[in-house]
């Protein structure tokens, strides 16, 4: 089990942040949260997460712009990004055609399904020493 990986969850809806954080913490992950793209960029630099889950529609910088920013930086380009969207069919495939975006999920989503996806995406990502220490 690749537990104690760090996951950054970005959403401006407090309830979504809360429910995803709890689900993934219950699965053993270390969780960081942000409420918009700008805040998320700051958090990425601060904690360098192993995975990012982000909403699309957010103030200041939307989720896709944020994912694009991550893909441009060699230090963060490797971080897989899961995009959650409530825009449904109006989101064009070309919009999410960003190298680090690994999955686009429509809201409403299943926390159980998100946990399984995280497990899958982090299966081959080694846990960094600092995280092992934190988890311990």
């Amino acid at each position, binding site marked *: 089990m690749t537990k104690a990986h760090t996951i950054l969850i970005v959403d*401006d*809806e407090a*309830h*979504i942040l809360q429910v995803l954080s709890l689900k993934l913490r219950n699965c053993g992950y270390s969780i960081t949260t942000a409420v918009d793209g700008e805040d998320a960029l700051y958090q990425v630099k601060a904690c360098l997460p192993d995975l990012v889950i982000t909403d699309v*529609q957010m*103030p200041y910088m939307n989720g896709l712009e944020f994912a694009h920013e991550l893909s441009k930086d060699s230090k963060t380009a490797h971080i897989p990004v899961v995009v959650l969207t*409530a825009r449904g069919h109006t989101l064009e495939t070309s919009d999410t055609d960003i190298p680090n975006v690994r999955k686009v999920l429509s809201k*409403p*989503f299943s926390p159980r399904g998100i946990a399984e996806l995280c497990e899958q995406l982090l299966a081959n990502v080694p846990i960094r020493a600092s995280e092992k220490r934190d988890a311990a």
Partner: protein
Amino acid sequence: MFTDPISILLFTVTLLLAVMSIIVALKLKARESAAVVAMQIAKQDAEEACHALDSAKIHACIDRTHRRQVESVFNVLRDAVIVIDAHGEVLHVNEIASGLLNVSIESATGKPIAEVVVDHQLAATISDARSGLPKEGRQYEQEIKNDGETVAYEVHLQSVGHQDEAMHAVVTVLRDLSREREIALLKSDFVSKASHELRTPLSSISAYVEMLVDGDAQNEETRQEFYGVITTETQRLQRMINNLLNISQIEAGLMHIDRIRVDFQELVERAVTNMKPQAKEKNLEIHSQIAEVDLSIVGDGDMLYQVIVNLLSNAIKYTPEGGRITVAADTDNLTRSLHFSVSDTGLGIAPDQTDKVFDKFYRVENYRHVAQGTGLGLNLCRHIVETLHSGQIGLESTLGMGSKFWLSIPAERGQRKAA
């Protein structure tokens, strides 16, 4: 009687002369008759010719009248109309077509279609339609460039004439699809926004229910918290659906409202009383500045109460703890209207967003994480005030300095209390 030869000769000569005279006279008479007949025929011919000429003039006059009538009808149409004859020459273009083709109606008439219509595809299509069977129209969509702008048109072609003729006249109608496309885009944008806003509380409800089912809420306190979120989000969804239905009913002109005399002061006081607990939670003061005048107006009390509550609720949501909210109501004798406002010491709204806050699903971006909303409340307020009560609603705001939402509603009849 005459015995001598001379007398006989004279008598004979006289007789001959008489007979000749009679013959000559008869001949002259006959010629006269022929001339009269000829003259009569000529006169008749002339009369017929005159009649025919008159008739031709009348017909030409009728044709011109008909043509003018038909042209007038064509010019009333908002669509471009181009009519060509079986030879491919323009019989008529209406005013809209004249504008579209950049030609005057007079200069287009009589010219081959290819000289009038610059767009080769359209000119060829119209020309080809002459060989089509009458009553078998053709319809397609085409983009046409006009003054550097490309506009989508629905082109309808219809040939007119007898079936046994090889070529026919053609009536072409071009309908500008810009407005329809614009409406389709607005609809799509609305559906997209509605979908987003409805899915958001639905996501919370669905996720929290699944967490409860999966046992992720490990103690009673967490479970109670989850039930609370589910209840709140269900109510939010319900409010959104109700607002949406109300707005669409008002927009469709189907909303029935009770127009009775309403005491606006009572509505304000009731709303303030009901909202005070929410304000208290954030340590906010609500001040009332209600003028000592008759504030009754003719309208729908429930709807107006909803407007007051929505404005107060927004002020409470977006004013930081310890702030101040002021509700004011008065009448304006000059405009014979009621004025109401809700001012706060909240976050304020940037000038480029003040007009948009009344749009459907518009949420001030940096407010989204401050408080939840349906994105429909202010739009519903605008509909209730402006559409249903012929009033006005507006906003004065300075970023970081608070906002003042105001409305004015015609009082319909003077209600100021006698001094």
